[in-house]
């Protein structure tokens, strides 16, 4: 890939910013240029949170994404808001536990993943975000356990090191789905 523009969106508290940070670190670990830009402000508390992650072989120009190559929608408002903005031929990953409708467009590839349900069933209810990241990396052909471990170790504080394996499990679960 030369440049991938990814938009992650969901409710505050679903780990959108964390997932984006992981993606960015994964890119950095792979020797790419990256940028990570969150939405900020009052929406941090329960409203819609989104973040733009760009991974590129070249220096990143604008960190702002108006038309993502990939949209990860973790709730219905996010899909409603950003579905139209995805580039033709792009990819949408939707958490189908929380989004009941189907994607209306027919010029994008859509993956419906019941991430929230899978997360609960597997005993890590807060890691629906990482299940989706697993799938995303698998689609990009960037699913690589070693690099992911490095990236995870950057975003998980040393005090919570026990969470590293769990996150890895969630990523694998997503990739296999």
């Amino acid at each position: 890939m030369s440049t991938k523009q990814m938009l992650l969106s969901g409710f505050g508290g679903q780990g959108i910013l964390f997932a984006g940070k992981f993606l960015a670190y994964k890119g950095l670990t792979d020797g790419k240029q990256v940028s990570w830009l969150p939405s900020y402000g009052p929406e941090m508390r329960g409203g819609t949170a989104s973040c733009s992650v760009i991974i590129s072989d070249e220096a990143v120009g604008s960190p702002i994404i108006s038309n993502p190559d990939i949209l990860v929608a973790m709730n219905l408002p996010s899909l409603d808001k950003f579905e139209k903005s995805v580039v033709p031929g792009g990819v949408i990953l939707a958490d189908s536990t929380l989004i009941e409708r189907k994607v209306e467009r027919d010029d994008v590839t859509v993956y419906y993943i019941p991430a929230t349900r899978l997360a609960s069933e597997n005993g890590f209810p807060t890691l629906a975000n990482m299940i989706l990241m697993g799938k995303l990396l698998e689609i990009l052909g960037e699913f690589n356990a070693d690099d992911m471990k490095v990236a995870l170790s950057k975003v998980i504080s040393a005090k919570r090191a026990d969470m590293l394996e769990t996150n890895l499990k969630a990523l694998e679960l997503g990739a296999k789905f």
Partner: protein
Amino acid sequence: MADKVLMKGNEAIAEAAIIAGCRHYFGYPITPQTEIAAYMAKKMPKIGGVFLQAESEIAAINMVYGVAAAGKRVMTSSSSPGISLKSEGLSYLAGSDLPALVVNVQRGGPGLGGIQPSQSDYFQATRGSGHGDYHMIVLAPSSVQEMAELTVKGFELADTYRMTSMILADGTMGQMMEPVSLDLEVKPAPEKPWATVGTKLQRKHNIVNSLSLVPEELEKFNFERYERYNYIKENEAMYEEYLMDDAEYAIAAFGITSRVAKNAINEARKQGIKVGMIRPITLWPFPVAPFKKAADKVKAIISVELSMGQMIDDVKLATECKVPVTLCNRVGGMIVSPEQVLEAIKAVAENGGAK
């Protein structure tokens, strides 16, 4: 790559300040720059430094004034409405020739405005912001790496010229994360024989002061200060040129808009339009030379700004109005898109630059 870490722009400023030897930070909470204060609150006590949340922006800038007078590297940070409050202090810092670093992570205004990114404090920053004849050195980073590097540079310039350096960023620059190398070179602070650190009964007392009631004397101080400013104009202007060698059209943009413009320029080049960019890194002193040069060869200049058109005045002054200068802007927290900039480029290219 191994030595690079992902950091928010705000955090990069804070860490770079510490690397630059700053051990005193005073601030007051305001979005979108609170990460700087949070970072300092966490770090400073561990390295023998001082983080103090002041009762107001006014108090914060005056605490800065106190530490600066005592000869140490010191900083504060805020966002637009807070900078208005600090403006009194900025004028006093200038009048007393004290070095300090002030960060403005801009948000939309006027008034309470919004919390989304903006560049509408350009006039406030480059024209001095408080009362009286004075300038600050204004640095406009366009990447997280530059947030760090220009913070160090800001402290150095402040010390060299006994002035306030301002980092003029915006909400996007503050909030975004990029890989950054913190392997920063820092020049040691110069001797400060003027500082009020106690006479030790070894010398006549130092006075840090901006009052002079004799007009002849005050005029002389102003003249002297402006001689220094002129020297800075000649020697410290910084800018980056992007694809300007064969450019028929030029974009003027700083900070976040220069990043957006780069995307648009790349796309325009693919479509056969020869467009380049001059990106001021110092907004004061404004890099006049590259614009002067461009005025003799490009057909038009587009100033891309998150304001109602502020830097455009400096572009017109620098080019002495030899070429048409148009504005491409969004305000209020909205950000120009590469598509919008591309349209603006096409518009000037279509009529060959004529107005």
